[in-house]
Each structure stands twice: as C-alpha cells, then as structure tokens.
C-alpha cells in the first residue's frame, strides 16, 4: 500500500461496534454519548484543524464548531460513511469555510495568488534550536500552500479531491504543493 493510499485508507476502517453504540446514544440525545464522541475523536479533529490553520485559538473554535455540527447532525447520520471519516470531512470543510469567510471579510487575494511568505498566525512557537521540526515549519507556510500540503501529504487526499474542496484546479493544487514542499525543505534544512 502506498503512503497516500495508506493515509486515505485510514478513513475506511470498518465501523467499530462501539462507534455504532455511540451513534445510537447520540441519536437519543444521551449526553454521555456526546462525551464518548468527543473523547474518541477530538484529538483527530483538532489535529486537522490545527495543522490547516496553524492557529491554536482558531483550531479550538473550529473543533467546537465541528462537534456542534456533528451533535446536531448525528440524528440524521445514516452510517453510509465511517463516523471518523464523516467527522474528518466536517473538520476539513469547517476550516475551509472559515478561511473563505475570513477572506471575504478581509478582502484578501484568492488562493491562487497566495504565494507570499505571509506568517500563518499564532501557532505553537518554532523549536528553540535552529533545526525546526515539521509541525513548526508548517506554521511558516502561506495559508493556501499549508492547506494543500496538509490535505495531500499528511491526510492523503488526491489532487482532484483537494481541487474540489478548494474550488480550484488540480493544476493549482499541484503548484501549491510544489511550493509548500520546496519551502518546507528550506525551513527544515536551516
């Protein structure tokens, strides 16, 4: 299994029986089911939100949004997708919707032009020593390049899937990915 399919395949695990129980409890509005849902999936959701935003405060807010959405949507969840995959998708869409809303409010330039080395935000500080680790280096990428890198090289999405999510061409995604990889290699070699 190639790395990209391994990452993508992580979305395709058979639904564990305890997740099915969790969904049933959530449909009944059982608060303990919510606690179990959060305990089981919050780390994954937060990881996606944090890496894509490079902003712990926003990542926490978006994680909250995802779980509110999930809790509201679970009564209608038909189990035709894995629960973890569904939450993951909610998280990705929440991040992208938030980015679009911010871009509209701030009248920023489009994804395709997001080339400048703009600081990403209030993420975890870079490593104290000169050799930056990958998590810290991700925060130094422009927003668009970081999102594409996280979706493709960390989360295993294909170029076409990313293009559909971001509303751009797969060619633009490939360009952004190339820039992200080049910049990361520069940062990690300091």
């Amino acid at each position, binding site marked *: 299994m190639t790395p990209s399919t391994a990452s993508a395949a992580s979305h395709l695990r058979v639904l564990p029986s305890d997740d099915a129980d969790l969904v049933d409890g959530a449909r009944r509005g059982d608060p303990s089911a*919510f*606690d179990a849902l959060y305990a089981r999936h919050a780390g994954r959701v*937060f990881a996606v939100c944090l890496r894509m935003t490079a902003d712990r405060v926003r990542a926490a*807010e978006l994680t909250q949004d995802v779980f509110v*959405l999930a809790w509201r949507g679970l009564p209608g969840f038909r189990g035709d997708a894995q629960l973890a995959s569904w939450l993951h998708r909610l998280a990705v*869409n*929440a991040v992208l919707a938030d980015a679009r809303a911010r871009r509209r409010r701030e009248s920023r330039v489009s994804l395709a032009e997001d080339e400048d080395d703009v600081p990403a935000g209030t993420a975890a500080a870079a490593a104290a020593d000169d050799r930056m680790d990958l998590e810290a280096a991700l925060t130094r990428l422009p927003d668009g390049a970081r999102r594409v890198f996280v979706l493709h090289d*960390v989360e295993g999405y294909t170029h076409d899937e990313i293009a559909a999510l971001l509303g751009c061409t797969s060619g633009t995604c490939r360009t952004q990915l190339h820039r992200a990889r080049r910049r990361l290699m520069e940062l990690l070699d300091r």
Partner: protein
Amino acid sequence: MTDHTSDPNGPTDPTLDERRLAALLADARALPREIAPPPELHARVRRAALAARPADGRGHRWQGLAAWRRAAAVLLLAGTAGSAWWMGRSAGREEGRDDARAVARAADSVPVTAVAATRDHEMAIAEMHAILERERADGTLAPETVAIVERNLRIIDAAILEARAAVARDPGSRAAVELLRATYVQKADLLRQALATLTPA
C-alpha cells in the same frame, strides 16, 4: 537547491532533491494522527453542543408555522419568481405539526441531484449556525438580532422542508430543485447578514 518551477503540473518533479523530498514526505506521514486539544475545550464544546440539541433528543426547535405564513414570508424575503411558484403550491396546505412531519418524511427521498445542489450550502449554513450559536451563548449577538434571525430561520427552515418535499414528489423538476437551492441561498444570506452584525474583537 535547484529551483524547479518548470513542470508544476506533473505528477512528480524529478529534478528536486529526491532524498530530501522522501524524508519530508516520510515525516509528514509520520505526524501524529491526533493532537490533544486544550483541556478546557471539552466543557465548552459540550455546553455548546447540548445547547444546540438538548439532551431530551428534541430535534430542530423551529417548527410548526402555518404553511401559508411560511409561503408569505418566503415571498417577502426572496422576491423571486421561484418563491411565487412555491407559494402557489403551498397555498392549499393545512397548518400544523402533522403537516410538518409529513413534509419531513417526504424530504427523506430527495434525489441525489438535489442533494448535490444543496450540499455546499448545507455545510456553509451549518457552520454559520454553529458560529452564531456560540456568539449567542457568549452574549456577543444583540438580542434584537437574535430575535430577528430566529424568526426568519423558523420560516426559512420550514420552507426548506417543503421545498425538499416538492423535489421528492417531482424529482425531474428543475424548478423544484432550483427553488430548493434558492431557499438554501436565502438561509445562507440571512446567516451571513447576522454574522456581519458581529463587532470584531
């Protein structure tokens, strides 16, 4: 390192330093799948989630308006030919919760094409809902804004249910699908207007 921008659209960029790229990709794949969120987040999320859908399992709070009132309100809000069509279809419907439940049952069979037309709107709406819920819980939304938004959302939500039922009854109708989409756009616009009233921190 050589700058390689000559073939950004190819599946690989063979002139990059392959060893360094392989190491980078290996590091990316090895990143932890989970990152622990701030400990205090659980309580906050729990509060917001249970406020959005109470623990007694009640579904959507906003139901039960008379069909003719919904029709009139949507026409007022939308002012489009599509809404006039919808109002004509709804004029003869009876009032009451039984009607709303029947509409909801019919909406379960909305065809895939209509779902595709509204999926992006549904996600955007759900996200804005969550933001507004949080802002309301935090007290940053003016009460009058909350009252107006809630009232209009009741109307639009019921209109969405009826539009979905119309699509379910007549899946081949482009007008029905377009009206469903337009109703979602109305809801999204309403929520954006409410969000626009928020004062930046």
